[in-house]
């Protein structure tokens, strides 16, 4: 409980605020698990948000908007993938340049649609709405993107833990040469992961312009989200559950900022707007120190350190960012 805001409202707004970020971060996580870093994230989020809004506005169909957003993301993924996987160009350079290009392209092409009214994905009641207790009614009445985000989480936990394809994807990110020796096609698996990941990033971008921060403009409100998502993937240790927890923490800090602003009107609003960023850094420092013992000895046996290790230890896919040349 914070001030006079009921807990259920707080939870509901955290869920709503975190959903697009979750979809974006999980998308990037899929890409990185296969060993490719897609740094174009931040620009692509804006680009697909713009495309999604424009298409939804022109066709009047939200589905078409989301789909267009996803496809816009996938197109940029195609560029990143082709350049870095098949031409062996630096993944960092390609991603970075593309990020800036996409951002400017989004502002330029989207300019005519600035500050116009368009279709918005609203919160919808679940079919079994009436059967739920009142607090759950508030929490679960959300736009479809929230349900998609958490369904995606459940799917990815299963996918990486229990599915064969998931294991193959991880194996390529760890050691593409060994994956090749076992009869897999590392380049194809990486390309497909990049496409799937960037499609989700596009959907996440669409979720901003069609739901969380409806409309297009400069600034749109999704600026910087891509970088946060990149950081979340790293500190979430490339594990779906932890990435999502990080995204929700960030959304919680943002929501708190808005709430606190109302309570303390004398403090400049910028303080609350920027607070999530340093708070995120403090969280990371805490994570670092809490796992120091576990990292030193490899495996922790005592209860507390073992759990801290499981919760906070971070380990990247071993060949992340390295381009692999098939023999």
């Amino acid at each position, binding site marked *: 409980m914070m001030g006079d805001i009921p807990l259920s409202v707080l939870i509901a707004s955290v869920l709503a605020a975190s959903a697009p970020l979750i979809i974006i971060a999980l998308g990037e996580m899929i890409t990185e698990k296969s060993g490719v870093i897609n740094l174009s994230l931040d620009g692509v989020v804006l680009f697909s948000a713009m495309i999604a809004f424009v298409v939804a506005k022109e066709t009047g169909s939200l589905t078409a908007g989301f789909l267009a957003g996803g496809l816009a993301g996938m197109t940029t993924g195609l560029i990143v993938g082709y350049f870095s996987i098949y031409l062996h160009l630096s993944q960092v350079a390609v991603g970075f340049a593309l990020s800036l290009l996409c951002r400017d392209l989004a502002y330029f092409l989207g300019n005519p649609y600035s500050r116009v009214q368009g279709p918005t994905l609203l919160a919808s009641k679940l079919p079994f709405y009436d059967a739920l207790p009142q607090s759950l009614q508030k929490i679960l009445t959300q736009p479809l993107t929230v349900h998609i985000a958490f369904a995606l989480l459940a799917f990815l936990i299963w996918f990486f833990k229990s599915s*064969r394809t998931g*294991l*193959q994807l*991880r*194996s390529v990110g*760890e*050691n593409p*040469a*060994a*994956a*090749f*020796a*076992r*009869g*897999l*096609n590392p380049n194809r698996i990486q390309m497909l992961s990049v496409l799937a990941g960037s499609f989700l990033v596009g959907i996440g971008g669409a979720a901003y312009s069609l739901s969380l921060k409806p409309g297009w403009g400069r600034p749109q409100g999704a600026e910087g989200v891509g970088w946060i998502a990149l950081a979340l993937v790293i500190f979430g240790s490339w594990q779906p559950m932890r990435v999502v927890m990080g995204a929700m923490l960030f959304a919680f800090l943002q929501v708190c900022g808005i709430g606190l602003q109302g309570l303390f009107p004398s403090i400049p609003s910028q303080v609350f707007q920027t607070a999530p960023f340093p708070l995120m850094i403090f969280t990371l420092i805490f994570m670092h120190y809490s796992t120091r013992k576990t990292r*030193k*000895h*490899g*495996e922790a046996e005592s209860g507390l350190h073992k759990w801290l290790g499981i919760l906070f230890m971070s*380990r990247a*896919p*071993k060949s992340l960012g390295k381009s692999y040349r*098939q*023999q």
Partner: protein
Amino acid sequence: MEVEFNNISKRFGTVQALTDVSLTAQKGTIHGLIGENGAGKSTLMKILTGYQTKSGGDICIDGNDVNLKTPGDAAKIGIGMLYQEPMDFPPLTVLENFSLGCPALAKVRFKESLQHLSTAFGFQLAPHRLVELLTVGERQQIELLRLIHCQTKVLILDEPTTGISPAQKKLLFPALKKLASEGMTILLVSHKLEEVASLCDEVTVLRHGKVTHHTKAPFHFPELLQAMFGNVPEQQKKADARKTGPAAITMHSIETGGERQGLTLESFIAGEGEIIGLAGLDGAGQATFLRLAAGLCFPKQGKIEIAGKSVFLPADRLEEALFTDISLSDHFSLRDAGNSFWQKSKHNKKRAEKGINAFSIKGKPDSTADDLSGGNQQRLLLALLDPESDVILLENPTRGLDIQSGQWVWEYLTKTLSSETCIVFSSPELDEILHYSDRILVFYDGEIVLDSATAKTNHGQVAAAMTGVSTGKE
């Protein structure tokens, strides 16, 4: 399946690795492929699995010309290879490593199959342990079981006994013979003549990328050695024990984790000039012992003191000791960097050339470390090693080396370096330990169970201690 190589050749840039190699491996036999380091054995096998492409010639399987472009193609028709350097995924679990890459068998129960196979072979593999916590030998074991599980019909083994204990060998060899008698074609790449002799039905010798000899069992060793090296390397007489000076390494009431059982030891003192061999089954504690002495890991309890400068040469040279993509001359300049801001590239190149000549490394100053063969990597490490070091710690110093290179390494260590250097090394080869060390430590389940002067012990006693016989454990 019958495997037939017809006039295979392979070029790497300007280097001719294989020239017109032809050989036939019959169905249901074990075919040995021997030769010194860099003779082209591994390259030939990698061509068969589709991991590397050939520059000329063709491969026939059961009389049909096949064109294997990727290991995937080869796996589909039942060709599988156990690589010399583990080709696996250290951050994944044993079970995950085991279940990756069996295209034909999607629905089988991997866990049951793994447990079934490891019992049959006498390997102890916990399915949910991370592979990065295992030794090289154990990683080879997983890979071998996986290949058998995938119903491989042509099994290629590149130095399969690296890091496998004598006891495991006793289980592995009959198993391989049984597999062959059931119709599997096995190609065995090895340096170890005894192993080849006890296992193989036929042997082909490669030298400088060409077939120099082909023969069927029984084998005549001098003949094979002649074909491998041109001249027979002589087994030197064991040198006299060196004089022991003041303590160089002191360890006191150590307790630590790592490997299978961790490591506990009361007290240990190594003197200047001592050559100490560490024997033990894979994962019994030698690796941890060396890393503790090297300062690469810290004990949970206890004290370690090293007098003077020490260096450590690990078994996994590319992973732990060298920089894969950095040139030889840069390796030298990194070592000599000192406090200078500038790099003297001309000077370094000369320095590298000198090292290359002095240590007869087959490579150029600008070739990278992973261009070198295993033996030449070891030579490079020795060239980089500070000859003034007081303590030298070596993990399996002759791993992947042929007899001549191995002898060369030992000659350098014992003759060229000061006789006051304390040398501590581990090796899976009992003969190497008995031959070169003055003192033997035997590890078993994370403890030292035997600490004796080499002259006062023998092969049987050490082997018994390694398997835990003298300690009363199983």
